[in-house]
């Protein structure tokens, strides 16, 4: 049993892991950058260690500092969360060599799946269907253009070491190739320290379906069913659910079998996710394997009752999986919304600032996985996700209705959020029908943004409040003027 776990991550996922540690009686040790001093994980951890600086490379991606710290504080294990070091084989190898347990797969599995091109090759060999495209990285613009011409535009240019929607660009025609190629390589280098990119045929209007798999170190495997993560903006998921309403029992059988085979192909252990694209015929293609915990893991937890983070810790300790496939059943339905500090009405531009009011929703079926508290700051250095709001229901309708109810209770001041936008999605007929694909937001965008603030009543309240505030401010200024005779020119027109 681990006594102390170092959490090499921040915000929401660090909080998630800290809570699991507390429930298991394990000491949680967090790290924080200077900008993250007021973030929630810093406050909740049993121990919190400062990493000087703010950029990822100085802090959460600083291998030497984190490894040295783990040794110094005698951590038995490191949990990488998602992003940062979670899929970095070099880091994992260094952790393994230091005699510290890595809560995740082996560096070997990560390497096999980490290069998206090699993974495609591996899947091809194991008869898991892949999206048409290259299985090697593209060396030059010239080569890339040639391949793109062969498979036909539109294509996707993707970072070989990428994931999570970053380092990926859709190219509609050859004239956009040059700048997209440069830009993707630049972003890839910065985000993943590797600028290899590859090309995939752009599959039109597919669903993003993924299967949660889990292996232990003794060769046992289970899957925890699938998730539908097709609601995306800028190639990043914003609403996810489990199970996928379009997946019938027969399809579920096919995709979970493929997923387990994919995991076995790379001798996988711990939590992993097989991401698939599924077209309208329910044919599916391997997209990539995420060799880590996913952001959206709570929806799977809610429909299975399994705490995936605790299971990760247990498997990393060398234990057998705590459940057998036959004991797992889908219980109800769960939907997650990612609450971002961003402006959907301005191209989803991130918003930064200090959170001056923060009220989270509560009640039946509501789970909030938050990374911040009141007085925390959303800084420009990291992903602007504030929290995940996840609701469970006996069926999809109840889950969505709870999510809508709960989103209305959320109160966040200090940054612009996407809450109104999420509410628009949740009442969109295509979303409600379950028949949305990964271009849903793009296609419905006009509809989704005009829907906002259609509440006349709320607007009236706002207008009245503004007038009352202005009036009371004016009254105060008049009083001040009466006393001080200070004719401030700002009141010229009054």
């Amino acid at each position, binding site marked *: 049993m681990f006594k102390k776990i170092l959490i090499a991550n921040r915000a929401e996922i660090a909080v998630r892991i800290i809570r699991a540690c507390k429930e298991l009686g394990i000491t949680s040790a967090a790290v924080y950058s200077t900008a993250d001093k007021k973030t929630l994980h810093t406050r909740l951890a049993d121990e919190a260690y400062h990493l000087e600086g703010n950029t990822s490379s100085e802090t959460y991606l600083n291998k030497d500092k984190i490894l040295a710290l783990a040794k110094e504080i005698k951590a038995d294990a490191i949990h990488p969360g998602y992003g940062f070091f979670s899929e970095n084989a070099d880091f994992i190898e260094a952790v393994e060599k230091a005699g510290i347990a890595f809560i995740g797969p082996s560096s070997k599995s990560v390497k096999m799946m980490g290069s998206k091109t090699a993974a495609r090759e591996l899947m091809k060999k194991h008869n898991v269907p892949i999206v048409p495209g290259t299985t090697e990285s593209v060396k030059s613009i010239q080569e890339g253009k040639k391949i793109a011409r062969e498979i036909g535009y539109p294509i996707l240019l993707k970072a070989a070491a990428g994931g999570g929607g970053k380092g990926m660009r859709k190219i509609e025609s050859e004239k956009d190739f040059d700048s997209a190629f440069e830009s993707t390589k630049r972003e890839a280098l910065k985000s993943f320290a590797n600028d290899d990119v590859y090309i995939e045929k752009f599959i039109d209007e597919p669903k993003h379906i993924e299967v949660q798999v889990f292996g232990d170190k003794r060769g046992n495997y289970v899957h925890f069913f699938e998730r539908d993560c097709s609601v995306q903006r800028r190639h990043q998921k914003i609403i996810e659910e489990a199970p996928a309403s379009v997946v019938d029992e027969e399809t579920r059988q096919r995709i979970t079998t493929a997923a387990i085979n994919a995991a076995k192909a790379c001798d996988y252990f711990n939590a992993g996710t097989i991401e698939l694209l599924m077209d309208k015929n329910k044919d599916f293609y391997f997209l990539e394997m995420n060799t880590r915990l996913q952001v959206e893991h709570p929806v799977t937890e809610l429909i299975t009752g399994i705490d995936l983070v605790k299971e990760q810790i247990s498997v990393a300790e060398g234990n057998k999986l705590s459940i057998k496939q036959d004991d797992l059943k889908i219980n109800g339905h769960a939907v997650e919304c990612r609450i971002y500090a961003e402006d959907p009405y301005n191209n989803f531009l991130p918003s930064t600032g200090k959170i*001056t009011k923060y009220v989270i929703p509560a009640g039946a079926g509501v789970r909030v996985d938050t990374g911040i508290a009141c007085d925390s700051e959303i800084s420009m250095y990291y992903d602007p996700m504030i929290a995940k709001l996840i609701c469970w229901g006996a069926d999809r309708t109840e889950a969505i209705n709870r999510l809508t109810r709960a989103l209305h209770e959320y109160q966040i001041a200090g940054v612009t959020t996407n809450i109104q936008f999420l509410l628009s999605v949740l009442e969109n007929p295509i979303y409600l029908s379950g028949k949305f694909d990964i271009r849903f937001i793009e296609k419905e965008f006009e509809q989704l943004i005009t829907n906002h603030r259609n509440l006349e009543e709320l607007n009236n309240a706002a207008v009245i*409040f503004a007038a009352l505030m202005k009036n009371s401010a004016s009254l105060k200024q008049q009083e001040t003027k009466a006393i001080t005779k200070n004719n401030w020119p700002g009141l010229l027109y009054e």
Partner: protein
Amino acid sequence: MNNYIVTLDEQKHNITIAGENEIRLNDNPIEYELINLSHKNYLLRINNKFYDVYLENIDKEKITFLVNGTSYDVLIRTFLQEKASQLIQVQKMHDHLTEIKAPMPGMIIKINKQAGDKVEHGESVMILEAMKMENEVRAPKEGIIEKIVVNQNSPVDKGGLLFTIKNH
């Protein structure tokens, strides 16, 4: 003095504060009650419905606040202020210079244009990196770059001027 014009999402509302518990909104009388819960926190009752309000900021003509979690950013003016601002607006129409400001703090990592260049509507002028994402800053209208006031690899604050476009 207790007559205001509130502009919300480009719509104007006419408000008269008629008494401690009565207001007229576009001439409809409405009963209200405002309770100050604590610093910046209010409960506003309108007829038989309560609203949870948090006042973020108030300055001369702009008030930012949350009503039941929905954020509002409204312009509010007395009748005289409104009239004056309309005059200023007319003035501005003659002025063809457009200022493009940083929508968030970040780092300018690439500048594709220089002063004097012609730009199309939607054309990329520079790349602003923030939160590990590259954001293209595009020309909001066609014209000629009058000046670029930032340098490559320099940080910018939210709202900081990036460049200006004049009509051609």
